[in-house]
């Protein structure tokens, strides 16, 4: 498709289980971002990829969170041993390049994660 695609759109998981969230960015976009939005809060930065490398992982809230990107395309965000506070909408965005107009990021619809 032409836009950023995320899957699944909804995920309900039991506390303590691992989950994987997938993001397919716009073809050719080198930059990829993961954010999350908890209920009633703003966008919280998690991690940023330029190509396949992640120069900025400063937003990952704990070592239970990890992300990878392969082929300068698909990215997977993995949350191990999920906790209830991980419940949020996880948003992926991609942009064409590092500066100026290329910085404009296009967002996916998000994955709503609920940990019960």
């Amino acid at each position, binding site marked *: 498709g032409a836009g950023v695609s995320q899957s699944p759109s909804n995920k309900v998981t039991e506390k303590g289980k691992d989950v994987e969230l997938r993001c397919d960015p716009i073809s050719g976009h080198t930059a990829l971002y993961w954010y999350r939005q908890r209920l009633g809060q703003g*966008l919280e930065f998690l991690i*940023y990829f330029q190509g396949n490398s992640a120069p900025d992982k400063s937003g990952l809230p704990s070592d239970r969170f990890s992300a990878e990107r392969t082929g300068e395309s698909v990215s997977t965000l993995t949350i191990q041993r999920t906790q209830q506070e991980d419940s949020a909408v996880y948003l992926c965005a991609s*942009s064409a390049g590092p500066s100026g*107009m290329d*910085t*404009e990021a296009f967002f996916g*619809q*998000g994955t709503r994660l609920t940990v019960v």
Partner: protein
Amino acid sequence: DQQVKQNSPSLSVQEGRISILNCDYTNSMFDYFLWYKKYPAEGPTFLISISSIKDKNEDGRFTVFLNKSAKHLSLHIVPSQPGDSAVYFCAASDWVETSGSRLTFGEGTQLTVNP
């Protein structure tokens, strides 16, 4: 350390009037600023942007103003329409030698336009 701040969590205006959404930032290295709009259950969508070399950018009913000395930008919507009701996020980017560019978002402002 919140580098981009939207101090008003909500704003309510009458249809036809002007909506002014404000955003403050602390990082003087930010060189590009963007506004995004987000409807419930959807991802944010790009609305309008401005480069740090400009002080105004206009697109239809939407105008963004940048005051670099005050580290402040604002989004004006004139005239406001009920369909503009959404959460508006301010974002800023800078380019760092070691890590490339990164978008930093504010907390968002919920705009409600009343008919």
